[in-house]
């Protein structure tokens, strides 16, 4: 077995948390059940990985099998990577039957014609997701297995989710290959990025809970499970106001859990306007700002601002439009026409 392959397998196993190693090797299916029984999974990871490498040696593993193990790891720990969303479009309305074998052949051909040294692997998952792993080399060097790009294509949709690696210069090549292999016309990067691949899918596939205008939420009194404080001396002064804020919030954000995004970025190029009495900075030029919101779960966080008293309800459409518009990068300029307070986002 090639030494680089052995080292690569060793390092991949070391990345896996100890309790997960056995399950992942079973999913991989390259080592037999009998071989797996012989490994002591209670020792330190260094030793486990050594034993795995030895067994792979017996089975004559090559880079293809090692790559499959890497795909399995990255599929389970997909949230460790940063994903960008790409959308393809086609001119006509003809829908072609998707042929997986043809697709794979075309991808390989496209990439290998352009760049001799690439390692390309595929794996299909549920909900029509095709995972494509590409390890990039140069005309003079072998592919670097540690610098890989991943593309996840859902065959019934025009969307591809790409986690590029350090070699961003290879992205156009990958995009071109995808367009050719899927018979679309072109591909563009959407302004949507995040770590949670499933949340990005929820947003573009519209799988998160939408707020339907006809839906009437149950009155708050029914929803309130916790027993009311029986002490009649305690009165909540702004009870109606609080309930109004809650209701407006629910209308805007919907009832279900929000898709998980980590940040939203706004480049503001609007003019500065303040209280006219103060004569502050009456300039026509834009007041240039960059605002970035970050949170472990941004949309849930924004949803809780109005009830916490830190924001008006409803929250600004600039924030609430994130799932509908499927983007978290914005450029905001003034509306050029009538309404002085409005904004457009191109």
């Amino acid at each position: 077995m090639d030494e680089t392959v052995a080292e690569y397998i060793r390092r991949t196993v070391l990345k896996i948390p100890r309790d997960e190693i056995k399950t992942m090797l079973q999913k991989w299916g390259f080592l037999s059940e009998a071989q797996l029984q012989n490994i002591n999974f209670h020792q330190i990871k260094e030793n486990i990985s050594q034993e795995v490498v030895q067994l792979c040696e017996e089975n004559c593993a090559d880079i293809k099998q090692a790559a499959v193990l890497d795909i399995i790891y990255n599929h389970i720990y997909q949230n460790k990577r940063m994903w960008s969303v790409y959308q393809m479009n086609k001119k006509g309305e003809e829908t072609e039957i998707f042929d997986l074998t043809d697709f794979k052949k075309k991808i390989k051909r496209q990439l290998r014609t352009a760049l001799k040294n690439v390692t390309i692997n595929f794996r299909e998952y549920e909900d029509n997701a095709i995972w494509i792993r590409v390890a990039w080399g140069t005309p003079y060097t072998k592919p670097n297995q540690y610098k890989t790009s991943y593309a996840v294509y859902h065959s019934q949709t025009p969307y591809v989710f790409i986690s590029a690696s350090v070699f961003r210069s290879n992205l156009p090549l990958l995009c071109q290959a995808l367009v050719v292999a899927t018979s679309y016309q072109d591909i563009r990067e959407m302004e949507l990025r995040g770590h949670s691949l499933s949340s990005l899918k929820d947003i573009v596939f519209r799988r998160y809970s939408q707020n339907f205008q006809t839906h009437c939420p149950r009155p708050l009194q029914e929803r309130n499970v916790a027993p009311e404080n029986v002490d009649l001396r305690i009165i909540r002064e702004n009870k109606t106001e609080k309930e109004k804020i809650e209701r407006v919030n629910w209308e805007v954000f919907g009832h279900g859990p929000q898709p998980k995004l980590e940040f939203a970025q706004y480049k503001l190029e609007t003019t500065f306007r303040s209280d006219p009495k103060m004569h502050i900075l009456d300039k026509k030029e834009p007041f240039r700002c960059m605002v970035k919101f970050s949170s472990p779960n941004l949309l849930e966080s924004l949803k809780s601002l109005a009830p916490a008293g830190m924001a008006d309800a409803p929250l600004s459409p600039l924030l609430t439009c994130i799932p509908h518009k499927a983007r978290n990068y914005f450029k905001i300029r003034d509306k050029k026409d009538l309404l002085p307070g409005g904004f457009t986002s191109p």
Partner: protein
Amino acid sequence: MRREGRSNGVRRGAARGRAGVRPWRGQRERPGGGRAWGGCPGAPALDGPEPVRAQAPASPGAAALPGKRDPQRTAFLLRKQWSLYSVTPLYRFCEARLRDYGRQLGAFIAAERQKGLAVEVGVELDVKVAVSCLPDLKGSEQDQAALLLQLSTRSPTSKKNSEDKVVWLGWFCCVAGDELSENLPEDFTCLPLFLVHGAERYTAIVGGWFQKTFDCYFRRLTISPLSLSWMAAMWAGCKEDKATSAMELLFSVPCLPQPLDISYAIHAEDAKALWDTVQKTPGEITQEEVDVFMDCLYSHFHRHFKIYLSATKLVKVSTAIASAHSDGIVKFFQSQYLTGVLMLLTELAISQIQ
């Protein structure tokens, strides 16, 4: 010959929102008004009853100090992350005995290492201590010269003539600290601000030695959102020649189910333009002006996002001049403003001590 007055651009009082009068300051407080801080750091404030002191110096931050200031000598202080401490006055510290102190501190560190503290796993290194003065970092003649401590190690495997590796830097300073220093009894030295860059284990040991030797007390210096907004206003107004980085304010909202951080960065020119329309008198800043400046930024933000930044916590301010974090961490980016920023930080350290 015109006598250079003290560039004491600092005035305390109701301006900074603290109600009480500090006991040993007597009646220096001015009711209402709230003039405080010279305009661009380093410029003197214009007082009511007291006569106008020296002109605002041409180069901001160059306090009225005789002799030339060499930016090269303090260049090593720039672009490093410094953790801040306030230090109570040192008892019987003698500037002439610096080499003694260096030796004693070195011996103390060696002893602590014998005890098993301050040891890097598996590495036996001799720690050398260098103690020196930084005379450039003074606000006025009355200030004590800054004191620099440098801990360096030399790997036993390296060659004889190789350079020592600096592993820890700490310096005490006092810039325009008259408020504290002029009321001190004889034997006390006023160096209220301590900045450190390096491993915490060394900081603990050096601090321990100073506390033991000079009967002083170190405390982490935190910076309130109020002080941070002052820094934002002051630094936004400073003149910059070349295209500079934006003014960035970082707000934190920790008490939500999912914590939220908001970074609000404004183009440096636009921030300065805004400050210039707010500031009424050059060379002078008032609390009201800082409030108006911040309110403008908050309302511009609210107009877009409907979020009240005033309800969140300002935790960091970063400009082309310096950056400061509420945990008491600063970075200096420009030599010419170094003294000005230190003046501000000295003031904060003194407030924390008193």
